[in-house]
Each structure stands twice: as C-alpha cells, then as structure tokens.
C-alpha cells in the first residue's frame, strides 16, 4: 500500500511538472475559492445582520422567566465569559400630581442594554440623543404617554409604590421595546437597586424576570442549548430570530437570498470540477492500459488514482480556501464602509463547506471515470478503440451528483430551499441532456452532405456527440447558475425593496374609539397626512380548541404557552389583506358573511396545532363565541402593514366591543404632530416602528450589496466552466484539425467551423439555461422568497446572446492554438 502511495505521489509530481494537472487544479482552486469567498462573505454579512438585529432586543439572547431565575443561570453565563444583565418587568400604577397611569415598569442593572442603545430627550417628541447609562438612583425615565397622562415634565416627581422618583428624562428608544406591539402600557424605566424600596414586588406580583446575554455566537448558541436542556417550567430563551416577526422574516429572507447566491457558486464549482475531472480521466486511458500491460493490477491502478485524487483534492481545496479567504478579506476591506457595520470575525464553517465541496466534488466526479480506468483492458495498447469511457449522464456520475446534491442541501441550510434548488438543478440537468441529445440527432442529417465550413462545424457537434452533450450540459448549467444570480440581484431584490417603499407606515395608532375615527381622519387630512385605513380590533382570549379547554400548563412549547396565555387582537375584513396569502382553505365570499368563520395565520396555527376546520372558542370580556377555521394565511410580517393572527368573517364579530387601529407614515421631523395628536386624544397609543423598519431596510440594502459583489466572484467560477468546457473536446479537435489542415483546409475555414460549432452550442445552452433559470427563479421567488417575479425579456436576450457570443468567442479563441500548430507535430503526438 505504501509502495502504491509513494508511486502515486511520484507520478503525480511528474504529471504536475508535465502540466497535465493544470486544468484540473485550476478548476478546483478557482471553484473552491469562489465558494469560500462567497460563503465567508455571506456568512459574515449574515452574522452582522444578526448582531445588528440583536440591538433591538438589548442582547444576543434573552432568558425570560415568570419567577426569579436560579443563580445558576447567571453563574453559567459568567463561566462562559458572556456579558449578562438582569431586568424585572411588571405592570404598576404611576402616581403624579394630576392622577395615575398604568405603566409597565422595567428595573434594569448597570450595563443595560448589552446591544443597542437607550435614547432619551428632555421633552416629548423633541429630538433625542443616546442616553448615558441607566437611570441614576432615585430617578426614572418615562415614555411620552406618561408625561401626557400625568401632566408632568422632566424634573417633576412621580410615585411608584412606596418611593418617590424624579423624572430625569423622557424615554424615546429602548431595545426590546414593543416585543408585543399591541399589548403595552407606557414604559417607566428605573434602576434595579431602587426596586426593593418601592415595595411593589410582593410574592403574588406578576413579575417578568429576564437575563440578557451577549457574546460570541457559538457560545450564545451553547448557552441556549443549556437553557433548553434544563426545560425549566416558565423559563424560555429568545434569540433575535424569535423576537420580532418583521426582523425574523427579513432575516430569514436575507439568509435565503444569500444562500441562493452561495448555491449558484456551488453549482458552478461542481460543473467546473466535473468537467476537468472527466478530461483528466480521458487523458489517462492510455496510461492505464500501458500500466496494466507493464504489470500493474487493477487494485494498484485504482489505488494510484485514488491517492492522487485525494492529495490533489486536499491540496487544491486548501489552496482554494486560502485564496477565497484572502479574496473575501479584500472584499470586506473594499466594502467595509459601505456595509456600515463592523463585520464580526468570520466563523470557519464556510471554509469547511468550501473545502468539502472541493474534495467531495472532485472525488464524486473524478473517481467514477478513474475507477473505470482500472477496467480499461490492457489490450487497448494494441487496439485503441477498446476501453473508451462511457458517455456522461450514466450511473457512474450518480456518485458525483449525489455528493453535490448533498452539499447543496447543506449549503442551503433549509430543506425547502435545498429541495427546490437541488431538484431544479437535477431537472435542468436531465432536460439539458435530452435537448443536447435531440440536437445531436437533429444535426446528424447534415452529415455526409457537402457544404460550407459552417455546415462542417455544425456536423462536428453530431460527430462528437458525447463531447457535445457534455458541453451543452456544462455550459447550460453554468449559464443557468449565472442567470439565476442575475435575476436574484436584479428583479428579486428590487421586488423585496419595493415591499418597503419610502412612505411605508412607520407609526401605528391603537386604542382608537369608534367615535374618534371620523375626527382622526379629519385631523390627518388637515395636517396633510395620507388618510389611513382603520381596522377594528377585539381583544380576546383563546379558551378552547375543538371544544377542548386550552390548558396552558400542558403545552410543551414555551412559545405556544405564551401565545395561549395572552390576549389576542382579532379583526375582521371582507377582502384578504394585502401581503396575506391563503395556504389552506379559502377566503370568504359574500354568502359567507355573518357566518362564524375564522382565518388564522399559519405560524400561530402550527405552534398551537390548529388546522383548517378546527373550532376555536374565544372569550371577549367574559362573553364566549366559537368559530370554525375556514382558512390558514401566510402573512408577510416585514411589510409593516397592520396584520392580525386571527380574523373573522364580516358581520360575525361586529357585536363585540372593538377599538380601532391605523398606521401612517410620518416624516422624522414632524414630532409636533404626534404631540398635538396625543394631547387631543390621550387614550390613543402611538407605536413607533421606524427603528425596526430602518433595521429591515438595512438588512435589504446589505443583502443587495452582498449579492452584487458575490456575483463578481461567481463570474470567476463561470469563466472556469467556460474554459474547462472548451477544453473538454480539445484533444479530439486537435487531431481532427491537423488532418483537415493536411488535407488543405484553410485557417479561415477551420475558424469558421469552430465559430459555428461553439456558437450553436452556446446558443442552445443559453436558450435552455435562460428558460430553466426563469422557471427556477419563479419557483424560488414564489415558494421560498415570497416576492412576486415577472420574467424579463431582457433576460432572454442576455442569456441567448450571451451564450452564443460568450461560448462562440471563447471557443474560437480557446481553440486558436489548435489551428496555429504545425499539423505534423500534432499528428505525430496524437497518433504516437
């Protein structure tokens, strides 16, 4: 075995020196470098997005509990060198000189928030600033509504339980605020060390305890696992992705966009390596036969090639990883200021993915033909026609395809996305093979007929049928991956950006009484604010599912328990709200009005185990009603429009007491308008989602930028596919053109034939690739990314023209040396 290894290495060294490995190694290094740089970059951008989103929560992880957390939670954080601060939250009355207001008190420790900032101002709705620390002992920071309701200003005093505090600032921004948008009393923030003196926390008080944590992502993930493993009743861990639906949806979508970009580079890498590996195997047919003749056993030959591929795979992949790493550093340096945040240190997972892509694709695609080499009969030394490698697409490539499919699933990190991209690529592969075979047999009719060099070029496609099929498939898949990325960075990202136009509502008004609707409409009209729509809201609690009382203590899932315990806002509408899509059942039509029908959002339905046809019983202020789930809806939460988990058919809920809500867009400099509004309608609550919206916008912007730059890197892998694709038939072409030259063929005729051949291959590949990319993009847009997509005619022009010209020109240029070599030299070399 060691003798084989040593021999394999000696042969590898000799082949390297002779230049035999250049195409393969080049394809491997560039493909792996492309996957590495793309994966590193997308991973870091995604990590940056996550850490930025953590600003909204005040930490990377929040452990919440309905009872005091055992000291072990903080101790475990200290052991892991995580930053940690505690908070307590509970509702209480705040007393001021003019009355009382129910507020949500939050007592915080020095260091809060670990992520993001607190923002304060001196008067409600005046320009604010980043706060310095937390409220000092004896002081509180309060939200504008407390100021309005109690008629106080900064410097005045308010009473919380047994202690009087000075209002030191007006609180305008707080991470973690608005976790439950429609269920909030105004915030009063105080120092945790003051809490005991208020004597508000008694054994029966409903206090929310929380431990906020921040630190490196893997340690946070580990800590979270520890919390989940404890599975302590009433304790739950929330990461940023579980926090706000808008951010979660935007992050998920960002992740998918970045995954598709990275997957495109994996497809290209796979094609490039597969092509180069196939060429390597073909060029070693004779060597295998000679070695068999010289006494090498099948096992020896198999081992020699296996060792060679392993060493080549490891070396090429390592080199590719290094190159990709440095390329991504250059990208980060170039984009540093544009990305706008400090990118977190890279995790080394992307290098692992790329390394495995390199080795696994090389072995997956190179080993089947190389293992065939061991079966090359030694008699080939006497009869060359024996032992030719089988055509592509046969089962021998099943291993390579399975490996690549597995890697794509891994890279996708999402079963649905993985299934669509892998399935789409496989379907594309099969269709490309079939179409290429069809073209080969269609062009066969030209064989044997006299004609121009153009015709000769086209019949070449039919004569070199196996090579032509390989080329159409390779060029087709390559162009498809590039087109998919083109659509992704163009139309699909545009559509996502369009979901959040400049005037997207950034303020929500809730608790509006029915009688105030007309007045408010007038108020908005007088102030030049676009008249918003008003939606009814009924606060209800879920009592029973299919007449079975909901027992929150038996629910295993913490989120399900939270959802079941709280009050829901129900609404009704005659038309399906924009950004909602029916996934099960159907939306009601006029004959269904007044019937007890409900429509439920799919996420909450899944969490609570509710299906279409189930009967839900709610109680509203003690009165119960039951409705049947007529439909399940998917909701685009990151659209920032008013959306509801549960909606009823018109007429069904009209008799229950309702308040109304609306949303509108307010320019940043019109704070006074809100002051006026709150003074006139003190019962109304304003919720500012501008910060969250800015966060979602920045996610979209950064993903756009990342995909844009990733595109450039992926192009490099595309060029390798082009190069390796042209090389695929170069050996046969060399001999053929030497014979043509010997028979008097002019350089011009041969060049024309080459242009016709590669132009036709490129046109067919481009046409097929565009069609396949458009279909795949449509499926991904509607099923995975949830954005609308319309196939652009420019895509067809780009694909077909790009394919014809790109492949045609590259083919002619890449084959020039075939024509420029003296025919005798070629003949002697090839026939020797």
């Amino acid at each position, binding site marked *: 075995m060691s*003798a084989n290894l040593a*021999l394999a290495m*000696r*042969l590898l060294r*000799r*082949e390297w020196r*002779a*230049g*035999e490995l250049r195409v393969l190694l080049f394809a491997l290094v560039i493909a792996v470098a492309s996957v590495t740089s793309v994966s590193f970059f997308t991973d870091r951008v995604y990590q940056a997005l996550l850490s930025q989103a953590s600003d909204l929560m005040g930490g990377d992880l929040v452990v919440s509990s309905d009872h005091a957390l055992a000291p072990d939670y903080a101790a475990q954080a200290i052991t892991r060198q995580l930053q940690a601060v505690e908070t307590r939250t509970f509702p209480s009355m705040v007393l001021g000189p003019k009355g009382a207001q129910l507020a949500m008190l939050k007592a915080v420790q020095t260091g809060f928030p670990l992520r993001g900032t607190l923002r304060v101002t001196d008067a409600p709705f005046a320009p604010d600033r980043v706060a310095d620390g937390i409220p000092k002992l004896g002081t509180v920071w309060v939200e504008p509504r407390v100021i309005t309701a109690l008629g106080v200003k900064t410097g005045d005093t308010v009473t919380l339980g047994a202690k009087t505090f000075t209002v030191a600032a007006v609180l305008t921004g707080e991470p973690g605020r608005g976790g439950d948008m429609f269920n909030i009393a105004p915030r009063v923030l105080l120092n945790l060390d003051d809490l005991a003196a208020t004597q508000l926390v008694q054994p029966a008080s409903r206090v929310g305890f929380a431990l906020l944590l921040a630190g490196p992502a893997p340690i946070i993930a580990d800590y979270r696992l520890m919390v989940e493993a404890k599975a302590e009743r009433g304790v739950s861990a929330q990461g940023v992705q579980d926090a706000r639906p808008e951010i979660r949806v935007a992050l998920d979508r960002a992740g998918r966009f970045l995954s598709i970009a990275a997957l495109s580079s994996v497809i290209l890498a796979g094609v490039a390596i597969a092509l180069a590996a196939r060429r390597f195997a073909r060029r070693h047919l*004779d*060597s295998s*036969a*000679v*070695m*068999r*003749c*010289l*006494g*090498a*056993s*099948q*096992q*020896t030959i198999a081992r020699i090639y296996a060792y060679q591929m392993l060493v080549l795979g490891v070396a090429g992949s390592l080199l590719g990883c290094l190159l990709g790493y440095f390329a991504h550093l250059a990208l980060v340096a170039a984009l540093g200021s544009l990305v706008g945040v400090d990118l977190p240190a890279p995790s080394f997972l992307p290098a692992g993915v790329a390394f495995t892509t390199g080795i696994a694709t090389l072995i997956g695609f190179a080993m089947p033909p190389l293992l065939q080499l061991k079966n090359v*009969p*030694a*008699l080939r*030394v*006497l*009869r060359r026609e024996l032992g030719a490698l089988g055509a592509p697409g046969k089962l021998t490539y099943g291993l390579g395809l399975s490996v690549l499919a597995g890697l794509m699933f891994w890279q996708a990190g999402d079963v649905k996305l993985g299934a669509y991209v892998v399935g789409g690529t496989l379907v594309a592969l099969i269709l490309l093979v079939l179409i290429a075979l069809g073209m080969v047999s269609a062009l066969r009719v030209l064989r044997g007929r006299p004609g121009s060099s153009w015709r000769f070029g086209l019949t070449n496609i039919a004569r070199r049928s196996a090579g032509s099929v390989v080329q159409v498939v390779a060029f087709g898949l390559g162009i498809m991956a590039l087109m998919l990325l083109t659509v992704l960075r163009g139309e699909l990202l545009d559509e996502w950006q369009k979901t959040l136009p400049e005037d997207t509502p950034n303020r929500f008004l809730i608790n509006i009484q029915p009688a105030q609707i007309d007045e408010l409409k007038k108020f908005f009209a007088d102030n030049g604010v676009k008249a918003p729509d008003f939606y009814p809201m009924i606060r209800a609690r879920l009592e029973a599912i299919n007449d079975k009382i909901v027992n929150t203590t038996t629910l295993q899932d913490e989120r399900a328990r939270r959802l079941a315990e709280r009050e829901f806002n129900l609404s009704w509408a005659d038309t399906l709200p924009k950004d909602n899509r029916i996934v099960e059942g159907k939306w009601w039509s006029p004959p269904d009005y007044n019937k007890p029908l409900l429509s439920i959002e799919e996420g909450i339905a899944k969490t609570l185990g509710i299906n279409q046809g189930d009967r839900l019983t709610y109680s509203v202020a003690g009165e119960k009603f039951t409705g049947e789930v007529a439909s399940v809806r998917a909701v685009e939460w990151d659209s920032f429009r008013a959306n509801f988990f549960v909606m009823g058919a018109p007429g069904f809920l009209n008799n229950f007491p309702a308040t109304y809500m609306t949303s509108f867009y307010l320019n940043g400099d019109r704070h006074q308008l809100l002051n006026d509004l709150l003074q006139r309608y003190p019962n109304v609550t304003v919720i500012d989602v501008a910060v969250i919206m800015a966060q979602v916008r920045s996610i979209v912007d950064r993903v756009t930028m990342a995909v844009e730059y990733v595109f450039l890197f992926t192009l490099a892998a595309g060029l390798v596919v082009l190069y390796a694709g042209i090389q695929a038939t170069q050996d046969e072409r060399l001999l053929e053109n030497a014979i043509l030259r010997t028979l008097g063929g002019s350089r011009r005729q041969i060049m024309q034939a080459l242009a016709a051949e590669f132009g036709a291959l490129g046109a067919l590949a481009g046409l097929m690739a565009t069609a396949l990319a458009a279909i795949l993009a449509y499926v991904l847009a509607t099923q995975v990314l949830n954005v609308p997509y319309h196939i652009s005619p420019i895509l067809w022009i780009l694909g077909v023209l790009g394919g014809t010209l790109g492949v045609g020109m590259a083919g002619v240029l890449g084959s020039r040396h075939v024509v420029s070599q003296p025919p005798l*030299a070629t003949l*002697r*070399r090839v*026939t*020797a």
Partner: protein
Amino acid sequence: MSHTHTPVLVVEKLGKRVDMPEGQLEILSDIDLSIFSGESIAIVGPSGSGKSTLLGILAGLDIPTSGRVLLNGEDFFRLDEDGRARQRGALIGFVFQSFQLLPSLTALENVMLPLELNDLPHPVETATDVLQRVGLGARLQHYPRQLSGGEQQRVAIARAFAPKPKLLLADEPTGNLDSRTGGQVIDLLFELNKERQTTLVLVTHDDNLARRCSRRVVMTSGQMSEHA
C-alpha cells in the same frame, strides 16, 4: 543462436472466436506452438490473418476461447486478470508499433515505470543504464513529444528490457518508422536480445526482419504453419 530445450511459452490448441452480426468469426484456430528460451521467432502473415490477436493472447492481454497457454510452465489463463498482470510484470516485456510512451513522463521516467510498478530495486540507476545502452544517455529528461519516432521507439525498447524480462513481445516494432531508422531499431532489438538472453517473439510484415529470427511462423486466416 543458442537456446536451451526448456520452453518458455507453450501454446496448445489455441482458438479465438468472436461474435459478429453475421455469425461467429474464427480468428485463430488450433494453434500449437512451443517457444524455447533464447529463441527469436517471427510471426508473419498478411493483415487480418490473426497475428496481433495471437500476440495479444500470448501476452495475456486477450482471452482465448479454447486451448491454453503455458508461460514458464504455468497455465496463463487459469490466473485472473490481476494474476496475469503480475506475470506480465515479472516475465514479459513489450514493444509496440505506436510506442505507447506516457506523454507526461520523461524518457527516464517512462523506463522507470515498470521497475516502479513491480517494486524492483534501483529504478533510476537501472533505467539510466538501459537508456545509455540504447544511445539516449543525453535525452533522459526529454518528454516523448521532444523525441523523434526512432528515439521514442528506443525508449520503448529500453522500457521493455529494463525489468530483465524472460520474454519480449514486439508488435510491428518498425511499423511507424522509416526503413533506415527501422533498421537501426531492429539492430538494437537483436543486440539486446542476445546480450540479455531474452526470448523474442515479434509480429511483422517485414520479410527482412523475419529472416533475422531463428524461427518463422506464418499466419494465414487464423491458421499457423511453420517455415524453416
């Protein structure tokens, strides 16, 4: 030419048939042949007479449909393919019409290859010696593409003799060479054969070449007859 009475290769009732669309085609039938150590034997005959098929079977590269071949007293076709490869490595050297040098290896490395594959000692020294013997001492680091046809065939001869085989099989060794170069290559082949006491079996069209061998067998439509 002196030779002992131990046959290196014995062929008994050898036949080879292949299936063709129009029925079975008999390429070789009832071939009997004994080749003794130190002999040189030419297999001649027109194209399509079965010479190369016979050579392929003698080398264990092809399988007969009937009869047997004893190499050094052992039934060659009772071994599996890997067993025959080992026997080839240990006992047989080859010279082909189309040279069959590996293009990515230098002249020296091509000659070293059978020594390395069969784990023989001192491959560099042995290969260098043989290449010097065939007059290519100055061309050790040249690739096949940098050598003329005659030089390439001399490298192939050096490769065949390097592992000191008992039996040397040559398939039209001058077929790709002009007559002058061909003559030089044949001189070399016979000199080495004599020096190293190898048994030589060669397939050729060339009567002059055939006459230099100690024995001559003629193939006609798959049948063999021996001429003195």
